[in-house]
Each structure stands twice: as structure tokens, then as C-alpha cells.
């Protein structure tokens, strides 16, 4: 199966600093990839380049094998959804209205919403399990519920690629587990999921992990391969030891500062 989204040799500068220096990454339908890396490694920049919000100086992003600039903006937004770390929409906006704005790339500014749009919005609310909150104003939600509403907006775009920037950073453990369960279901429907995850332990949710360091993918593979690699130790300045949990393949990792 070929990649639905692929970055080839991305080179991107922000504020006079080369943030991405030849980044390569590819996702096939149904892939889940956790992107990790130290602060300012360029993780968010990579997400935004994949969503077409930043234009690389060199290299290219291919969506369904076609370079992004060859796609109309609305068509990209129908295929790629970006979910930010924090929702900053108006507090009084109702959850269902927030989610329905994800249909904008499909309907544009004027066309009325159809039954089809309503069905997609309802499915997004169902998948994220926030149907019971749909009439509530965003301001009355907990941080975890708000993050789920934001994710539902991304799902309402009906995307083939879901990009998430630290989706779990403000959530308590129960909401984190809920969020990752929803992402698993989304992935099972053939959506490619790429999530920037700060917490390395938590990032092992995904079967594949990629380490971004100094603007390049420094390691890629299973969580164990990446976390226990020398590249991870160097990138974070820590030593990592994997500890098997029970008899299965599951592992926990212990981190220690390097001298």
C-alpha cells in the first residue's frame, strides 16, 4: 500500500533558524505514528508543513502522491485535519456548532449543510463519545472534554490523515486513555494518525514511533527500537532502560539524566 502522506527532504526555516533540515516521513492508511523529540526539535513545524500551513524552502509534501501545492486548499483540508494542543474557540460556542465548523472545507462559506454533513458531525460526536455534551457551551467543559470536542472537529473534516499536536498534554490519565482509545478506533477506519506526544511513555501507544532531532528523523521503528536507541539518549540527554511488563511484549521505560 502506498503512502497517503509523505514528506521528502523537508527543509524549513522559521525566524532565521533552520528548523527542519531534510525531514523524511511517510504514513499509509491506518498507520499510527507517534512523533517524539526534545523541545524545539521542530515537531509542530513538521505537522504544520504536512497540513500545508507552512511552505518548505526545499523538499516537498506529497498527498496521495501529488505535491501539496498542486492541490486546492479546500481539497487538502478535506484530506488532512490538524488538531491543535488547545482549543481557543469562543466559550459560548456550543459543542455541536464547534464540531460542525469542520465541514467548512466540504461546504465552503455559502452552501447549506446537508443530511450528509449532519451525519458526519453526528458520527464524530459518537466516536469521541461526547454526544451528551453536544448542546453545551465550550466554556462549561473540562479540559479533557474540550480536547475531545476539538478532535471531533477534526473528524468532522472526514480526513484521510489526522495530525495531532500534543493532544494529551492537558489531560488527566483517564482522559488520556479515552483519547488514545478513540484514536485507535479512528485508525481502524483507515485514517492515518500522526501525533506529537511529549510524554515518551505515553507515546508508546502507537505501534510506530519517530524521533525528530535537529530537524531530521533520527530514529524510527517500534517504540522499543526508538526509545532504547542511542539517538534517543543523545537527543534528550538521558539514558533509557526498557523493563518488560509480565510475559508479553509490553515494556516500560526508565529514564535517567546523563552525567
Amino acid at each position: 500500500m502506498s503512502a497517503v502522506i509523505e514528506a521528502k527532504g523537508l527543509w524549513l526555516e522559521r525566524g532565521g533558524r533552520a528548523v527542519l533540515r531534510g525531514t523524511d516521513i511517510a504514513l499509509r492508511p491506518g498507520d499510527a505514528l507517534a512523533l517524539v523529540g526534545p523541545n524545539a526539535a521542530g515537531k509542530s513545524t513538521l505537522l504544520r508543513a504536512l497540513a500545508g500551513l507552512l511552505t518548505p524552502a526545499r523538499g516537498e509534501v506529497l498527498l496521495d502522491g501529488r505535491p501539496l501545492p498542486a492541490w486546492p486548499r479546500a481539497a487538502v483540508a478535506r484530506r488532512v485535519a490538524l488538531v491543535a494542543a488547545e482549543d481557543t474557540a469562543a466559550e459560548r460556542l456550543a459543542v455541536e456548532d464547534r464540531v460542525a465548523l469542520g465541514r467548512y472545507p466540504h461546504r465552503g462559506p455559502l452552501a447549506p449543510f446537508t443530511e450528509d454533513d449532519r451525519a458526519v458531525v453526528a458520527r464524530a460526536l459518537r466516536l469521541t463519545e461526547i454526544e451528551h455534551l453536544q448542546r453545551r457551551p465550550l466554556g462549561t467543559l473540562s479540559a479533557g472534554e474540550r480536547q475531545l470536542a476539538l478532535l471531533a472537529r477534526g473528524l468532522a473534516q472526514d480526513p484521510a490523515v489526522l495530525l495531532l499536536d500534543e493532544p494529551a498534554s492537558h489531560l488527566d490519565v483517564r482522559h488520556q486513555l479515552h483519547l488514545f482509545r478513540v484514536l485507535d478506533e479512528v485508525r481502524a477506519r483507515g485514517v492515518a494518525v500522526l501525533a506529537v506526544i511529549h510524554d515518551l511513555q505515553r507515546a508508546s501507544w502507537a505501534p510506530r514511533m519517530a524521533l525528530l532531532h535537529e530537524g531530521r528523523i533520527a530514529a524510527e521503528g517500534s517504540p522499543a527500537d526508538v526509545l532504547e536507541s542511542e539517538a534517543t539518549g543523545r537527543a534528550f540527554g538521558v539514558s533509557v532502560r526498557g523493563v518488560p511488563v509480565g510475559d508479553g511484549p509490553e515494556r516500560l521505560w526508565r529514564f535517567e539524566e546523563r552525567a
Partner: protein
Amino acid sequence: MTERLQRRLVFATLAIALPLATLAALSLGSVSLDPIGVLRSAGARLGFGGPGALGETGEIILWSVRLPRVLLAALVGGGLAVVGASLQSLFRNPLADAGLLGVGPGAALGAVVAVNLGWARERFFALPLSACAGALLALLLVYAIAHVGGKPTLAGLLLTGLAVSALAAAATSVLLVATEEFRVRTVLFWLAGGLEGRGYEHLGLAAAFVLAGTGALLLMARALDVLALGEEEAAALSLPVHAVRILVFGLCALIAGPTTAVAGSVPFVGLVAPHALRALVGPLNRRLLPASFLAGAGLVLVADLACRSFGEHVELPLGSVTAFVGAPYFLVALRGQEGHG
């Protein structure tokens, strides 16, 4: 009570209150007219019943003096409220307003320049167009200055608006005083607003711009909703952010320019009406914009009635009356917003 029921009640209230306020504004004033007579006279004009329900003087007062002024007040208020609601979405701040962002003073300066250079006498549309240009320039200036060094804070935005407003108002005063034919009274009009002596030609002039601009902004309701999500999310949803912002600025100036040209500065209407309604009908612009138009129309209509009912020979400046109501409202709302971080 469900939100839907609440929204319907709000719209029903506005739809009933506005005609009642209009009737009151047509009946009351230095010469009181019988409201029933006003209705019968209106019926006669529409082809029901006989003419002259109010007598010759009453008919003249109603149709030649009061009606254009009342309609103009409604149009000015409705237009400014729509401008306020749109700017609040664009700046992602429920306390943004044309007056606070330098639009009113900018429009006034544009209008005074047109009068001063004699353009207004040569071409009919020079005055409103020049006011549009002034409003647009002020908006772009505030926007550009406030965005230097990243996303502006509320305080940064308001202070920038304040500075640009002060600059425009100062230039307006200097221009007026430096010109012999102008007197303090004219200065007062541009700075404090008023609808005294406004007739059908002013109404026609403002109506074309206000209705066109309001209609266009209504068509952009969903785009404004997406824009209010923030620059990044809007762009990720394929909204052409910069083009939409410039378009909204242009449409706001299109409304604010001519309203200022015919009514002077009428501050705070664009803030109070949408801010109060946001709590009642929610922030989606397809509801907020029409509700704001109706509420703003009612507000200025009543404010203008207060201005001309104040005394027999003195009219209060319209802008002062709206400021007396709007400024305390703004202060309370500002405290509330700061409280929420």
C-alpha cells in the same frame, strides 16, 4: 429552557420591539402626534382608508421630518451593530468595536477632508466614500500596529485603537477650526454625532451602503465563524485568512463610513448590541448578525428619541447619549472579561 426556545424568544422580542419603538419615535417629539393617527396615515399612504389623518402640519412632520430621521437612526444603529459583531469575530474579542478601533474617528476625518477640499460639493458620493476610506485606513492602521510582534492582547488592541482615534479626532478638529466657514457646532457634530435635520437624501445615501455592506457580511457569516476560531485553525480549514480579513475590513468601512458621514460619531452601539446578544443567541454569526442589526437599530432609534425629547430648543448630541449608556456597559463587560482571564 432550551437554547432554541431562548433564541426564538429573543428574535420574537426584537421583531415586536423594533416596530413599537419605531411607532413611538414617529409619534413623540417636539410636536406629539397621535400614534393611532400615525398608523392611519401610514395606512392611507399604503392605500387603505382616507388621507389626512394627522392634519396638514402633522402629515408634513411625520413624512418629511420624522420618518427619514427615524429610519436613518435605525439604519445607523443596525449598521454599526453589524460592524461591531463582525469586528468582534475578526479580532476574536467580544469587546472589539468600531469606535474603539478608530473606525468612527477615521470616518469622521475622511468626511471632513472631503468637505474641506470641496469634493463633497462637486460629487454626491465623495463624502461617504471619503468617510469609507478614512474608516478603512484607521482599521488597517490599528490592525497593523497592534500585530507588530505577534498576536495583540486586548489591552494592546484597545490602546492602539485609542491612540489612532485620538490622532484622527485631533486632525479632524484642526481641519475644522482652520477652515473659516466651520464653527464649533460642526466640530461638535463630527465628534459627538447627531441626526438633527437629516432628511431623505441622507437616508438614501446611507441606506445604499449600509444595506449592501450588511447583506455581504451576512453572506460571510460562516466564514466569520471559522475566522473566529483563530488564524491557524481557520487556515487549516482552508479559509483564506488574509483575504477574508481585508474583505471584512472593507465591508465594515463601507458601513461605518457613510453612517459616520450622515450621523457623526455614534460610539458604543457596535459594542453593546452584539455583546449583549452573544449571551442570548450564541456566537454563531448567522444568528448574531441579524439579531445585532435589529437590536442596534432599536438602540439608536430610542437614543435619538431621547436626544430630541430632552428639551424644547436643545438637542442632546446622539453620540453622547449612546456613550452614556455604552461606556458604563463597556467598563462592566471589561471587568467581567478580565475576571475570566
